[in-house]
C-alpha cells in the first residue's frame, strides 16, 4: 500500500510537471487556429461599414497590426504572467469575464451530473435485475433515447412542456427577471443559502431545474448503460459467487461487493462527462439562455474575439487536465490493482 502511494505520488508529480507543456501546446494551437480561421475581429467590432482608416486605427489600438510572431511572443509573455489580456470586443479583462461565466457552467454541470446519476443508476440496476423483462426494455429505451435525442430538440421540448404549456418553470435565464441575485461566489444556489434567502434559493433552483434536468437526462444513458454492464460483470465474478456461497444476502452483495467494483470504470466516465461539461454544454446554454462559459465561447468565436477565445480554451483545458488527474488519483486509491 505504501509503495503504491509512493507510485501515485510520483505519477501525480509527473502529470503536474507536464501541465505547462500541455498548456503551451493547447495555447499555441488555439492561437494559430484563430489566426488561420477566416474572419476579422475588426469587422465584428466595426461592422462592414467602417472605412479603411477606422479599421487600421482599431487594428493598431488592439495590437493586431503587429506581426504574428510578435503577437505570439506577447501572448506567451502574458500567459506566463497569468494575464489573459482584455476582450477585444468590450475591453474587459478576460479573466473577469470567465470569472463571471464559470460559476454558471459549474453549477449547471454539477447538478446535471447529479441528475444523470440519479436517473441513470436506478435505470441501470432495474434493467439488470429484470433482464429481458418489461423494466429492462424500458430502461434500454430510455437509455438509448437519451443518446439519440438531439440536445437542442430535447431542450425545446422541455421548454414547450414545462414553460409554455404547463407554465410551471421559466423558459430561460439563471435568475428571476425582477429579482437581484446579489451574488457573493457566483454560485446562486450557494449564495442564497449563505445569505439565508429562501426566495433567491427558490428562484435559482427553478431556473436551474429545466436546463439541468434536460442535460442530466441526456447524460443519464451513459450512466445507466455503463452501470448495467459493469454490474453484470461484477455479478459474474468469483468474489460475488464466493459471497453468495457464504450466505451473504443480496443487498449486502450489491452494496459491498458488486457495486463498488462496478463503480471504478464509472469514475472514469464521470470524469469524462465532467470534463466535457467544464467547457459547457453549448446547445443547452444557448437554448436556455444560460449565461455560462459555452455561451461566452460561442459569442467570442462569432465576434473573433481572439483573447477571449484563447482565455476560455486555456481555463477549460486547465479544468479538464485537473479533473483527469484527480480521477486518476482517485482510481489509484480505490483500486489497489491499478499500478502507476
Amino acid at each position, binding site marked *: 500500500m505504501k509503495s503504491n502511494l509512493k507510485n501515485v505520488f510520483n505519477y501525480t508529480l509527473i502529470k503536474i510537471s507536464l501541465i505547462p507543456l500541455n498548456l503551451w501546446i493547447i495555447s499555441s494551437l488555439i492561437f494559430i487556429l484563430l489566426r488561420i480561421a477566416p*474572419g476579422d475581429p475588426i469587422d465584428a467590432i466595426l461592422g462592414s461599414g467602417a472605412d479603411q482608416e477606422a479599421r487600421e486605427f482599431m487594428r493598431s489600438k488592439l495590437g493586431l497590426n503587429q506581426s504574428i510572431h510578435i503577437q505570439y511572443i506577447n501572448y506567451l509573455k502574458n500567459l506566463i504572467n497569468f494575464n489573459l489580456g482584455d476582450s477585444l470586443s468590450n475591453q474587459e479583462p478576460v479573466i473577469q469575464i470567465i470569472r463571471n461565466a464559470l460559476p454558471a457552467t459549474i453549477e449547471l454541470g454539477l447538478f446535471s451530473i447529479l441528475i444523470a446519476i440519479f436517473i441513470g443508476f436506478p435505470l441501470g440496476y432495474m434493467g439488470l435485475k429484470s433482464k429481458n423483462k418489461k423494466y429492462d426494455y424500458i430502461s434500454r429505451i430510455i437509455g438509448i433515447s437519451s443518446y439519440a435525442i438531439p440536445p437542442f430538440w430535447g431542450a425545446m421540448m422541455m421548454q414547450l412542456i414545462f414553460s409554455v404549456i404547463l407554465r410551471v418553470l421559466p*423558459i*430561460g435565464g439563471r435568475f428571476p427577471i425582477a429579482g437581484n441575485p446579489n451574488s457573493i461566489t457566483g454560485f446562486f444556489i450557494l449564495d442564497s443559502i449563505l445569505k439565508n434567502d429562501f426566495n433567491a434559493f427558490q*428562484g435559482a433552483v427553478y431556473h436551474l431545474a429545466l436546463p439541468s434536468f434536460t442535460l442530466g437526462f441526456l447524460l443519464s444513458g451513459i450512466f445507466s448503460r455503463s452501470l448495467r454492464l459493469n454490474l453484470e460483470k461484477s455479478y459474474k465474478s468469483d468474489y460475488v459467487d464466493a459471497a453468495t456461497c457464504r450466505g451473504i444476502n443480496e443487498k449486502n452483495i450489491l452494496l459491498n461487493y458488486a457495486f463498488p467494483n462496478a463503480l471504478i470504470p464509472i469514475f472514469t466516465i464521470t470524469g469524462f462527462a465532467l470534463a466535457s461539461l467544464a467547457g459547457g454544454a453549448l446547445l443547452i446554454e444557448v437554448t436556455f*439562455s444560460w449565461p455560462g462559459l459555452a455561451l461566452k465561447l460561442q459569442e467570442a468565436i462569432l465576434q473573433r474575439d481572439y483573447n477571449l477565445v484563447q482565455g476560455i480554451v486555456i481555463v477549460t483545458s486547465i479544468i479538464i487536465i485537473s479533473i483527469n488527474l484527480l480521477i486518476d488519483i482517485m482510481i489509484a486509491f480505490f483500486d489497489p490493482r491499478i499500478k502507476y
Partner: protein
Amino acid sequence: MNKLKNFRRKISMTCTVIAIFSQYSCTNKINPSQNIIIASSGKIESIDPARVSTLKSYQLLNALGDTLYELNNKGELIPRLADSKPIISEDKLKISIKLKKNILFHDGTPFDSSSMKFTIERFQNIGTLNYILNKKIKSIETPTKELLIINLNNPSSSIEGLLTSINLTPISPTFYKDHFDKFLNNNFIGTGKYKLKRFSNEIQTLSPNKSYWGNKTKNNGINFVGYNNSSSLYGAFISKQVDVLLSNSIEDTLSNSLNLLSQKKDIKENKSAPIEISFISLRTNKIPLNNIDIRLAIAKSLNRELIRNKVSFSLRNSATSLIPLIFKKENSVSWPDFDPKESKRIFKEQGYCNGNIFNLPLTYRSNVPTDKLIAFYWQQSVKAEMKDCFSISLNGVESTTIYKNLSEGIYPSVILDWTGAYSDPEAYLSPLLSCEKFIGNNCLKGESVFSGSFWASEKVEKLFKESENVEGVERLNKLLEIEKIASKSLPYVPIWASSQKAWAQKYISKPVFNGAGIINMSELVRNEK
C-alpha cells in the same frame, strides 16, 4: 405494511414537489414591482454610448438618456436636449446649438454645453463607430453653458442627422471622468426618463427618473431581458413570462404566428417605418458582372413578391430602392422590376441561353436564416422561369467571414443588409456607393470596396460633395440623383426593407416607435389583466 409506508412517502414527496412548483409558479407570475418586462434577443454587452452599436442597446440607451435631437415617426427632426433647431453659418462650417436649461444628470450634476462637448470628444476618442464623426468635426466650442458650437472641417449637411445618434447621448462628465479614454460597460449616468437600477448582460432594470425635466414615465419601471434564440423569446411571450417582445431577430415564421395572434386581437402589434435594407451586392470589377447588361438581366430575374410572400409571409416590404421611404417621402427612384422574359432576352443578347447557361455564384450568410431562404427561393424561381439561360449556385458562409472577405473581392454576388448609422439618406448611400480612389467605374479604395461591389462613378462622387453644401429639398434631390445613377448601374439589387416590430400582451398599451425604429418605453402602460 412497508409497501404502504413507501407509498405514503412517495405520495408526500410528490405533493411537496408540486406544492413548491405551484408556489413558485404563482409568485413568479406576480410581478411585485409591476415593472414592464420587455424581451429582446441576445445580450447587451455594454451600456456605454461610445461603444454600443446594436439596436437593442440603442433601445435601452434611448430610455436612459436623451439625444440633442430625435426623429419622429414622420422623419422630422425634433429637439430634445437642444432648445431649437441647429443654426448653420453661411459658410456651413459652424453649427450653433442652443441647449435647454435646468436639466440634471442622474447623479444630480447639471447638463450643459461642456458636458455635451465632453460626450462628443469622448466618442471621437474611443467610440467604436467614431469614424462616422471624426472627419467631420474640427473643434467644439462652449462660449456659454447653453450654447454649443461645432466647427466642421468641411460643410456637412448630414451633421443634423448625426446629432440624433444615440452614440452621442450626453453623459455626466463628473461620473465619467475616469472613463474618458475607456469604456464603462455596466453603468450609465445620463439625463433620461429612467435611471439604470441594475445591469447584467442578460437583464437590465430601469426605474423612473423622478427629477426628469420632461414628461414623466407612465409605468413604474422596466425590466429588459435578453434570450438567446427566437423560440425562447416566442415561448416567453406566449406563456406571458414577458409583457413586450421586440423583434430585432425573431424568425419570420414566429413573427407570422404573432401577427396572426394580433389579427385575432389576442395581442397588440406595432412596427416602425422600414429602416433596414436587404440587398444583393454584385462584384462589378470583374467579368462577367462588370457587364452592366448582365447585371440588368440579373436584377430583372429577382422575383421580390415571391420572396416576400414565401420567406417573410408578406410581413416585409419589397424594396426597389436603397434609401428607406421615411427619409425621402416618395419613391421617385426605382430599381428594375421582375421581368423574366426581358431578363432572358438580355441573356440571349449577351450570348447566353441555348445550351450556354449563365451561372451566378450567390453567397449568403449561413447564420442568417432569412438570407438562406431568399437565396433558395431566388434559385428556384430562376430554375422555374429561365433554366435554359440562367442558374444560381448557392454558397453559405458565416457572416464574419463574409465581412472580412468582401473587400478582397472573393464573392461575385452576396446577400447583405444595411441599417444607417444615423437617420439620414446619406447614411444609406455613402457606405454603399462612395469611393475615394477609382479608375473609370472600378473602385480601388473606399466604401464600395467594403460593400463588395467595387463600383464607382465620378458623377456620384461629385454629387456627394455637392450634397454637403446644400440643405433641405435641394440636398435630398442630390442624394436621390445618386440613387438614380445607382439604380441604372446596378452595383446592388435591393430585395426588401424591414421594420422593427414589437408585440405587447393585451393588458399592455400598444408600443409606439420613433423614426429610428426605437420604441418609447416610457409610454408603455400596464392595464388590468
